[in-house]
């Protein structure tokens, strides 16, 4: 009866000013290094984009190492002055961010950029910036 989760994969979409990485499958102890490596590859000292969009539409699960990796991605993008958005968050990811009190952290730094870019992010539900409900 158990259905295997889709295999982990990262789809990188380059657009002017925005780099989108679609995370498909489980982001966990075994796979999260791959995400960090992919982000690191694109974070050159003078990157061609101002915003990194992580799209979680295809995310099936995330564990603590996955969250740790998102925190590292955020640290890296902040250091480079790049805005990070976590888009199309499934319920379990939203709950994890709420529980661990990290949602504000992810959204706060991106705020300035986020509001300006909001019109451009209208790709669907729960775009990371601005729409976060905060801890409550």
């Amino acid at each position, binding site marked *: 009866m158990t259905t295997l989760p889709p295999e982990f994969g990262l789809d990188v979409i380059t657009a002017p000013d925005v780099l989108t990485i679609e995370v498909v499958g489980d982001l966990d102890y075994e796979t999260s290094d791959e995400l960090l490596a992919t982000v690191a590859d694109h974070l050159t000292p003078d990157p061609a984009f101002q915003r990194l969009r992580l799209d979680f539409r295809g995310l099936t699960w995330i564990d603590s190492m996955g969250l*740790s990796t998102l*925190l590292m991605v955020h640290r890296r993008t902040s250091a480079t002055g790049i805005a990070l958005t976590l888009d199309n968050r499934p319920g379990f990811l939203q709950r994890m961010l709420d529980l*661990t*009190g*990290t949602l504000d952290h992810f959204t706060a730094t991106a705020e300035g950029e986020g509001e300006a870019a909001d019109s451009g992010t209208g790709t669907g539900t729960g775009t990371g910036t601005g729409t976060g409900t905060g801890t409550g």
Partner: protein
Amino acid sequence: MLVVDRAGGIVEANDAARTVLPDVTGGDGPYENLPDWLTEAHRHMTGGLGATWAEPPSGAIGGRHFEAHPRPGADGDVAWWLIDATDRHLAEETLRREQERAAILSEVSSTLLSSLNVPRCMEVTARLATRHLADAAVLVAPAQGRRHPVTYAQAHGPAVRVTRAVDPATVPGLAEALQGFPPVPTRWIDPGAIPAWAIPEGFEGPVGSVTVTPLPGHGVPAGALILLRSSTVRAFTESENVFARLFAARAGAALSAARLYTEQAAVTATLMQELLPPALGGVHGVDYAGGYRPAQDSERIGGDFYDVHPGADPSQESLVVLGDVAGKGLDAAVLTGKIRNTLHALLPLAHDHQHVLNLLNAALLTSRHTRFATLVLVSARHRAGRVRLRLTSAGHLPPLIVRADGRVEESGTRGNLVGAMPAVSVRTEETVLAPGETCLLYTDGITEARGGPLGGELYGVERLKRALAECAGMPAEAVVERVQMLAAQWLGQGRHDDMAVIAISAPRPRPLTVTGGDMHRGHSGNPGRSGRPGEPGVPGDPGTPHERHGRSA
């Protein structure tokens, strides 16, 4: 071709046969000048059995190898066609030897790899070497400090293991072999120059030939093998040296694996010793019970931990900590140790959870990683039959409180995880436990246990809450056992992460005749009205209380 009559007399031999058998004159007696194997084959033929061999008879004649094919003639004569099969025989001989060697190598691997015990691996290597390669073998392992473990073996003798200060430079090629350099050609080693320590005690006769072969390990050499043959046996051939190197490669890999495993096991054991959750019990009028079930991945130390720090006296709060570190293995173990030590040192400040967590956060922050921990702090104090709790979650699953009437409340405390963000902000919540009420702290190993009737389903907080509703009035220990049991049932045979649970209970007043100490110390005694399901002292539950004080006073 030669024709032999019924009696064994040579009737005719052609020129080729005479070349092969130059002693045949034509006037030979029965079987005279015939090789034994051919004589036997002829008797077999003429004895009425006929040519019933699966393979034609064959054997050596004058240093070459022949096959004999019979053609029965008139009068019981047999014409034997001798075919020179020397080259084929050589090829077959080589093939057989190669097959034998392959079998030996496979035996070496399977014998050695079945043991992860380093001394035993060295003994087996030395013994196998004497069985297949040489009269005696000396295995020199890399130095431990200034001394080398040395294993001696002789054919038909036991292996002897010693650790002694030997100088590898005294055996030509040994120092190099121990550093992993290729072996020195045998002919360069003067058998007379071999020092006494490199010859097993009781070795018969002077040393005739010697080889020194490195045992290549994973990255670092696993040692070197000295093979000795006595002077009465022929020296090592090049092909034997090649085989010795193959043997050494297998042995080295096995030894190296055993050594790595031993080191890893020792590290794990040391860390586990430090990280094992403490035994809990009653402290200052509050009951504590804990349960920890590590992930099956037993080589990896998990990231769950808990501690109970009793207050200095009953009027002081005790601090309970339960947490979960991101990841597993050595990194997680190091972080867990750091958190437990730091919190221990911060105990004097435990009246302000937010302050403690911020200090902890600052101690954990590093630019190298964002490995974080989520944890719950609970300060507990018994007062007039009730237990006052201050609960703070730092990004962790909020504690669940089981009321006497079966209601299950989720604590409203919230806060940030520690170790990855610049600051921690938390909301502490207070509550009071009436007698028989319990506060449960747990890690996500419980709620994220996958299983159930359909398999692959999460256990979840809601199921846990329903299960707890049935635990109203149970003592702390029983609640922990119940939760662990339900999670285990849910999992079935499934894999799981670390699972840690702590229950904090306000003990119910009990008749003074049943003292707490008696109840929990003796496993044989029936706890009477405590209502505990299951057997006492369930294996794997480190939280069996060993002590309780102050409750009935």
